[in-house]
Each structure stands twice: as C-alpha cells, then as structure tokens.
C-alpha cells in the first residue's frame, strides 16, 4: 500500500454513534477527503483525552490510523469549538440541522473543498448573524446547488419560456418552476409569490452580503422555508429528524 498508515486532517464532527461500552463511531467532514467515518476508542470515558475535541460541531485537527475497514482516531486537537453555538439552545438546534442535512446529502469519500468551506462559513455566520433563518435558507439553497440539485428558477421547466413576474408554481418533482399555464396541468406544485421567487433566486446566486441587506417579511420567510423544505423532503424521501425538534423549539419560544 503506497498510502501512509497514519495521516492528519482537519475535520468537523457531523455525526456520532455510540459503540460498545465506551467507544464511538464518528463521521467527519474534511476538506480533502470529504465525508469519512472513524472509530474513536474510549471517548465516552471521563478520563478520555480526546472526548472534548471530538464532540459534535467541533472543528478539529485529527490524527487517524488507517484500518482494514475503518480508520481509528489516534489524536485530536480543537481548532474551533464553536462555543457561541454550543452555549445557545436555539443555535445548537440550528447547527444540528445543518450538519444532519449535510450528512444526508453527501456520500463518503468524495472530496469537496468548497462544501467544507461553506460549512465552516455557515457555522461562523450562525454565531454572528441576526437573521438565523436566512442563514439556514442560504445554506440549504447553496447545498442543493453544490450537490447537483439546483432548482431551475429562471425558466419554466416545461415550456422553457422566461418566467413572467406573476405568481408562478414551484414544482419539487420537476426540479424547478412552472409558469402559470404549465403549472395548471402539473401535479404537486405550489404557488410562489413574486418576491418569494426573487429572494429564492438571490439565495441561489450566492451573494450573502446582498441578501443580508434585504428586508424580508415574516410571511415571505415562512413561504420560502416551506417551499425549500418541501423540495428537500422530496429529494431525500424522508424527514430531517432535527427539523422536527427545531419546529418544536420555535413553537415553545
């Protein structure tokens, strides 16, 4: 084997699963190896030197030893613990949703440096920006773009004509917009307001500094949230578990 037995990588912990008495299987998102899993021995014991560096939502430098099936974590040092997020109930819930979404949409072992940067950037934004919902929408739309599910928002997906500034229809199964004429005979499409579509497009264009200056009403925010979540649910064919919690939390606030 030409690859070295030991290697180091930066990693963000996006999932952890208990194993045996005191061990865990961790899922990391890394800059150059993409999503990888590793075995962390003894991290559930209080005397573990690594446990605090390997908690969910921690950005660490980890040392790994290649194994037959799975790598073993041999060392870990925190780069950024995202303490602001961890000290806030709501922020933690938002961040957990982000990493669950990332985990669902990615495959193991596929390098995606831009996606890694985006994850770091979004976790950073979450702790500094006021409009957390908008950060979430931005991440969702950008993630979809990145993994190849960019919805068509400029043209009607059926007749390929430019969309007019009227209430058009968003159709998850068609992967984009229907003009009012095509939307009428299509099934499972949802109306989207003119302003809603505008913001959706801006989120897709990815210039966050433009988006953050926008004044978005509560109704618009809810409309976008609903449509994007419908699209995500259609793509994944299942519910995102942490979303249920996020909604429960919003209700009790």
């Amino acid at each position, binding site marked *: 084997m030409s690859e070295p037995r030991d290697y180091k990588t930066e990693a963000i912990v996006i999932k952890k699963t208990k194993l045996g008495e005191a061990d865990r299987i961790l899922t990391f998102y890394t800059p150059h190896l993409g999503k990888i899993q590793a075995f962390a021995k003894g991290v559930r014991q209080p005397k573990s030197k690594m446990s605090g560096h390997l*908690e*969910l939502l921690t950005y660490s430098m980890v040392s790994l030893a290649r194994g037959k099936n799975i790598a073993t974590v041999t060392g870990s040092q925190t780069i950024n*613990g995202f303490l602001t997020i961890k000290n806030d109930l709501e922020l*933690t819930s938002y961040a957990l949703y982000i990493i669950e979404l990332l985990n669902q949409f990615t495959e193991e072992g596929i390098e995606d440096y831009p996606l890694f940067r985006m994850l770091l950037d979004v976790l950073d934004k979450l702790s500094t920006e006021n409009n957390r919902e908008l950060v979430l929408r931005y991440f969702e739309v950008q993630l979809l773009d990145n993994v190849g599910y960019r919805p068509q928002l400029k043209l009607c997906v059926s007749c390929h004509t430019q969309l007019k500034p009227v209430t058009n229809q968003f159709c998850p199964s068609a992967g984009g917009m229907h003009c009012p004429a095509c939307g009428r005979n299509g099934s499972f499409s949802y109306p989207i307001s003119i302003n809603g579509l505008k913001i959706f497009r801006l989120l897709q264009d990815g210039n966050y500094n433009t988006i953050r200056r926008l004044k978005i009403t509560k109704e618009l925010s809810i409309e976008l949230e609903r449509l994007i979540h419908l699209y995500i649910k259609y793509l994944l064919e299942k519910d995102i578990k942490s979303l249920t*919690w996020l909604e429960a939390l919003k209700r009790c606030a």
Partner: protein
Amino acid sequence: MEVNQSNTADSVNRLMQELAKLPGIGPKSAQRLTYHLLRTQKEYVIALAEALISLKNSTRLCSVCFNIADSDFCPICRNEKRDKSSICVVEQPQDILAMEHSGIYKGLYHVLHGAISPTDGIGINDIRIEELLIRLKGKDISEVILATNPTLEGEQTAMYLNKIIVPLGIRVTRLARGLPFGTELEYADDVTLTRALEGRQELK
C-alpha cells in the same frame, strides 16, 4: 452466530445463542461463558437464573422519580431523611448510582431516561420532561440541579430545562463543568477549559 449446531447438546446451543445477544458478547465469549456455567455448581447457576427472572418480574419504575424500584416508590423517594426540596435531574438510572456513591447529595432525583437528541429524533415528548414539570408544580421545590451529561445532547437538554423551569420561579443550577480529577491540563479541550476558567473558585 455460527456454531456447529449438530456437535453439542441443544441446551448448550440455546444458552450460547441467548448470551450472544448481550451487548459486548460475541460468539466466542458466549461459548466460554456457557461452558463455564456448565462446569460450575448447580446452586450458583440457579441463583443466577433466579436473579435474572426477578430482575424482570419484580422491578418497575418509581412513580415519582422514575428510578428503578421494587415497589411503587424507589428507596430514595421512600427515605424520610432525604431533603424533599431539591431535585437532581439525571439522564439514566445508573447516574443516580454514581451520584449516590459520592454520598454528598441528600435530595431527590428525577430520571429523564434519555436526553434531547434532535439528530436521533429524540424530542421533549420522548423523555420524561412532562412528568418533571408536573412534579415541580405540585410540591415546594426550591432547587432543581441539572446533572445531565456534559455532552452536546446533555447540554441541550439542560438549556431547554433551564428555559422552561426558570419562569416557574424555581432556582435552577447546573453541575459545574470543568477538569476531571486525575487528568492533565494539557489535554483539555477548549470548551472544558473555558468553563473551568469561568467557574474558578478561591481555595478554601
């Protein structure tokens, strides 16, 4: 598990299969335990079997704190000497054993049987939070000590409980999170060190 079924007695096979279902016990350990039991004295094996059956037949959850109990109330809730004005909230019944071993806490407990874990789909209705709130409304409780694990899930549970209990006018405290005894500072992570520094105290 792959055991050659035809080469040994049926009851030996049966026990091996049952043991192999236990956590951390693989086919080889199951085999070793089975043959060990086969060689040990009958009284010992009967005592073990009876212990197993009574574990299931005569235990239930305490109707107050949801600790494991052998009657309606667990030994701690029955004990008249315990301080009834404070409740220590823990994730699992085993945590009570650890707390009691230290011998320093004299109040009551409440076992949640889990922690909020959004990515596993465990929410507020899956653990015993509602029961805790009912307990708090009924009696004169002056303090709730949050002793959930210092993991992300435990912290989240603690923050959520804090948010809903404080409005009831009850003092809510959280176990200190800092450096564990017998470890070395150089290996501590940022979260632990930050909290250890924030919670520093003068030596008495």
